[in-house]
């Protein structure tokens, strides 16, 4: 085997590390994307019996966004197994307790329940903020593109940009500014 072929072989079967910024992203749409990288479905050599999945680091999981009023409508069910052991937790309550749990459950539920699922989940690293350990961040070689653009707050724009942005309407002639 030539040196080039040898390196190609290593590169094909090496585990790659991806990073994904979850700020302002829908966790349930993102999980369908993250799942493909975790299972290695984006590779031409993919096969369910082929262990070719990659690592994914998810940052800013505390800043995920849900549509509309889903924070108080989505419910997580848990049963301890004892009589009367059922609990229903609202999404915002769960997020308050553990800001990584919603995205973790979303990725877990997006995959089929087979023996590989637990091992695939071990390759997912979720952090509530941007503080990722250096030894993990050193492995990262790819950033997964966000699904929706991050909105910019009005007070984050410089005052000059807000003032000089093209105006659609002007005040009437006799208007008292408020």
């Amino acid at each position: 085997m030539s040196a080039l072929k040898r390196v190609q072989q290593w590169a094909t079967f090496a585990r790659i590390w991806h990073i994904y910024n979850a700020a302002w992203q829908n966790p349930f749409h993102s999980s369908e994307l993250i799942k493909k990288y975790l299972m290695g479905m984006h590779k031409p050599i993919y096969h369910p019996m082929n262990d070719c999945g990659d690592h994914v680091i998810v940052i800013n999981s505390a800043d995920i966004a849900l549509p509309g009023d889903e924070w108080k409508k989505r419910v997580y069910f848990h049963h301890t197994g004892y009589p009367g052991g059922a609990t229903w937790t609202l999404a915002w309550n769960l997020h308050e307790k553990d800001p990584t749990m919603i995205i973790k459950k979303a990725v877990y539920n997006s995959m089929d329940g087979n023996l590989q699922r637990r091992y695939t989940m071990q390759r997912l690293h979720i952090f509530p903020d941007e503080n990722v350990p250096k030894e993990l961040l050193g492995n990262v070689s790819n950033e997964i593109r966000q699904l929706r653009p991050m909105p910019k707050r009005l007070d984050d724009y410089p005052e000059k940009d807000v003032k000089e942005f093209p105006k659609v309407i002007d005040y009437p002639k006799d208007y008292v500014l408020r």
Partner: protein
Amino acid sequence: MTTLFKIATNNYIKSVFNQAQRNISITSTLHLKKINEIQEGKDLVIYGEIVSSEREPYLLKSNHSKACPLCATGLDIKHTDVLILSQFVRKDGCMLPRRITGLCKTQQKRVTYLVAMAQKSGLMPNLTPAYSNKDPKKRYEWKKYNKYFDETTIPFKL
């Protein structure tokens, strides 16, 4: 004159009466005004001031004769376009009425929805009432978390 006054009040034509009361002014009374409040020690000074509009040099020119200013631009506005939406609200984040915005009925309702969406997402925290704590992350319970909206849920379609 007295007979005219009688006829006017009998027929509920108030405008005749009002116009008789109107003062004559040599200069134009129509100006953009601003009310300033300045606290000087114990005294609160409130005075009105005639100002020229800051928006005038940046106003979009429209070739349409009938379309409202927003329809004339032909834009599909999203709730994240805070630079446009902030033009339709007061300093406290309250939506301006239609007689001031000059929009058509559909656009006025749409913009009202979009402004509410932007406010709920916490994208215009500097345009809020004075009692607001200005930080969306300090809001109550579920309101402190990021949320986004789908513009197709607005019942007023263009």
